[in-house]
């Protein structure tokens, strides 16, 4: 399942500039380290950002590495959001990491099942993840292990359902008539 990292970087950057080369070296280094942790690492091709897919079980390890390793130094979690794939019965959780020191961005994607979505919380690594994970729980219903304060953030505590899921319906919402 492992995609050779060199191929993917070359295909994404046909015209090579110094910046691109640097990025390629960075990505190679990154992928090597990630593969050591998780054999299922893949590069997500259809993205304008540098992005890798990892497996659910390796998430916390990978994130810890990315945060704490001085080669990567991803000190900010820009956003955490979810793509819903109802036909495949999965949800794809995306974490955009940002390094203020190295000016690099990396999108981490993890797939979870739609029925029992659960992920480890990364709020120990990035404090802002506490709110971002609450938002994702609120909108998609993904629960987080070891989250300090998991409850709905925007909607009322007694709200039924998770509105940003593709199949969300309620009586109140009107569909645009045309």
């Amino acid at each position, binding site marked *: 399942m492992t995609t050779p990292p060199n191929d993917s970087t070359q295909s994404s950057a046909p015209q090579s500039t110094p910046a691109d080369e640097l990025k390629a070296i960075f990505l190679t280094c990154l992928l090597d380290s990630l593969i050591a942790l998780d054999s299922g690492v893949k590069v997500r091709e259809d993205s304008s950002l540098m992005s890798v897919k990892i497996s659910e079980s390796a998430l916390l390890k990978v994130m810890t590495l990315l945060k704490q390793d001085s080669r990567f130094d991803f000190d900010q979690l820009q956003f955490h959001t979810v793509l819903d794939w109802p036909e495949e019965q999965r949800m794809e959780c995306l974490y955009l990491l940002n390094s203020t020191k190295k000016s690099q961005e990396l999108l981490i994607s993890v797939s979870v099942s739609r029925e029992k979505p659960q992920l480890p919380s990364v709020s120990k690594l990035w404090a802002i993840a506490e709110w971002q994970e609450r938002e994702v729980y609120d909108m998609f219903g993904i629960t987080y292990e070891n989250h300090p304060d998991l409850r709905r953030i*925007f*909607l*009322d505590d007694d709200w039924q359902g998770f*509105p940003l899921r593709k199949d*969300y319906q*309620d009586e*109140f*919402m*009107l*569909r*645009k*008539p045309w």
Partner: protein
Amino acid sequence: MGVTPQLSKISQQSPSVFDLHSAHKKEGPALLTSIDALVNWARSNSLWPLTFGTSCCAIEVMMAAGAAHHDLARFGAEVARPSPRQADLLVVAGTIVKKMAPRLRTLYDQMAEPKYVIATGACAISGGPFIYDSYSTVRGAHEIIPVDVYVPGCPPRPEAFFYGLLTLQKMIRDGESLRRPGVRKAPVMAALPPGITMEDLRAELIKGAKGATT
């Protein structure tokens, strides 16, 4: 030569609270009527708004309208009260969502009579951009509290808000009375375009509502 385009006529002679004279009929003894008039004069000229704004409209309606260029103080309405107990005017400036709806109702209930409500902007009138496909936006403040004047716009200019304020002042002068506390007359159609009477409109709307229900 075709049909006169009515709408262009409307835009030329815009409906105006200044042009149309009051249709208010004097009732009862002259003394009481004049006391009524005095009371309504005082109430209409001393509309202290509640500092309340949820989103974009608050900038235009509560802030820019109160700022030096437009100056809400000219209407005696710059005394923005942060406590609903002392406010006369609730300007619903911005989107009201389901979570906010009970709070809006509370604010309204906490205000002392006589109290007036102006809904400004598309969101407060009908839900605006979020009227469809939004699971949380309430479609208009009138779903929660009685609204006296609607000021359309997204957001309305400060001048448009002043026009709304003048419309409300006219309503207070014409329709509210000391002798009927808490009961407000049916709205006075001051802002109707010329050539259209209240009766036409009412008939049409009743017809339409019947059509919609059946």
